């Protein structure tokens, strides 16, 4: 559906996006992840035809953006960052305006607006000026704006920024619902969001793609390592270290600050073998009391931090 090849954008001397290439299949939800200033917004702006690329090619559907910008705008719905809409207009007037530009049949407009009001949960603010809405409602109006023409491709720039946790969950739910039938590209700097919503993530760092694969694959390839947290009472730090450090599969052991006389430690493990049964057996043979014992696989968060570390 979307084919991007060697996309580059220079602002004067500064290179914001540096030869990015990726593809998005129909019906896929792609998350663009990256720290602030990584080039996410610039990439999306080029994708929607708002900015002209310095070099590279973008093809959406059957059209290339250079030759047929208008055709591409027709099949894309775009929500820019923080939903900049006309402040003075009533929500319903604004949606009417968008419906007009999207060339909906005059008779079908009100039905479509009603339908989107239902989907985005903005029915009760339809007759309020956009400037008086809270950020969450404005974002939802922006979402309704983007979906007005029932576009094939939906591009959303940080759709959940500045929302409260309930609203974030709702917006994600909407995105996932749309993503079943449409192609969605959205940017975010919140990792759990990408993890929860996307089929695939592309991590952008300093204008380059640092990683691009499905969320599960990304965790498998980079996140084979895991950590085991253990808390024990009635034990002394030296004894614990002697007993547990030698277990096969454990590559590192670090003690945390003790609390209430309990010894807390974190064991790092590699992917080769699972040390948990052996650890448990050894602890059972002692007189210690086991309070906590759980494993954490390396999260997308850690992978992200590793990939975008300032070198």
């Amino acid at each position, binding site marked *: 559906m979307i084919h991007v090849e060697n996309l580059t954008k220079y602002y004067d001397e500064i290179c914001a996006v540096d030869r990015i290439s990726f593809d998005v299949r129909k019906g896929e939800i792609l998350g663009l992840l990256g720290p602030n200033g990584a080039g996410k917004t610039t990439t999306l*702006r080029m994708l*929607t*035809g*708002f*900015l*002209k690329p310095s070099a590279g090619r973008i093809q959406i559907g059957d059209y290339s953006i250079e030759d047929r910008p*208008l055709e591409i*705008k*027709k099949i*894309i719905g*775009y929500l*820019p960052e*923080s*939903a*900049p*809409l*006309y*402040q*003075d*207009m009533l929500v319903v*007037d604004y949606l009417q*305006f*968008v419906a*007009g*530009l*999207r*060339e909906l049949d005059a008779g079908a407009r009100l039905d479509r607006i009603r339908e989107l009001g239902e989907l985005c949960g903005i029915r009760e603010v339809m007759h309020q000026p956009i400037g008086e809405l809270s950020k969450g409602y404005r974002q939802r109006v*922006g979402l309704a*704006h983007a979906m007005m*023409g029932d576009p094939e491709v939906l591009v959303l720039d940080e759709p959940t920024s500045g929302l409260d946790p309930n609203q974030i969950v709702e917006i994600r739910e909407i995105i996932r619902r749309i993503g079943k039938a449409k192609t969605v590209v959205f940017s975010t700097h919140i990792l759990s969001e990408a993890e929860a919503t996307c089929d695939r993530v592309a991590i952008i760092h300093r204008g380059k793609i640092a990683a691009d694969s499905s969320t599960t694959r990304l965790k498998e390839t980079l996140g084979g390592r895991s950590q085991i947290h253990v808390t024990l009472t009635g034990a002394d730090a030296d004894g614990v270290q002697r007993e547990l450090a030698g277990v096969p599969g454990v590559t590192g052991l670090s003690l945390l600050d003790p609390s209430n006389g309990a010894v807390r430690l974190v064991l790092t493990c590699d992917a080769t073998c699972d040390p948990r049964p052996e650890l448990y057996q050894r602890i059972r043979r002692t007189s210690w009391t086991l309070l906590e014992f759980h494993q954490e696989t390396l999260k997308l968060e850690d992978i992200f931090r590793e990939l975008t570390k300032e070198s």
Partner: protein
Amino acid sequence: MRHALTIGRREFNAYFTAPIAYIVIAIFLLVTGWFFFSTFFLLNQANLRNFFGLLPIIFAFVVPAVTMRLFAEEFHIGSYETLLTLPVGFGDVVLGKFSAACAFVAAMLLPTLAYPVAVAALGALDWGPVIGGYLGAVLLGAAFAAVGLFASALTRNQIVAFIIGLAICFGLTLVDQMAFFLPQVFASTLTYLAADVHFQNVARGVVDTRDLIYFLSVCFIGLYATHLALSSRN
């Protein structure tokens, strides 16, 4: 073209949802009314020459104030991005906003129709120059709107847009006064460039193609420059 109309209608309505439209119209009517009627009874002549004589200078101030927000505000709040990623071209946007500004100027002139009606009640008014004057006023307003639109497309600051628009419109109005200082060759060119001269020709009731072409070409140049300013932005 249909998109230009949709955008134009939205812009025109937007004028009247904010107080600025009413303020601009009120100031325009106050200023024209004051200058017109303060000398009207002294001159004791049933014509509107005084009203139309002042119009170019007043328009040079008022029309840039009408157009200043058209692009600058959109750049400032970012809605320009939302608008331009809808299926519209630069041409639709420019024409839409231009037509809204022209319609606003026409709406602003509408209440002044009370002047000729009042004057006709007081004496024998020659309607020819009045009709010519209003035609000229609309043409002049359109030309200045195109200039103001261009100024607005240059910046995200409405004040800056106003000052640039004012400077150009003011220059166009008074450029023939400078002709006096220059050699003959330049003088005629400068006089041709003066909006005031062309406007007064039309306002005498003589509609000459030269004057029409002047106003239409100012509109065209202004709109084309706006188009260029927008497309070089990204």
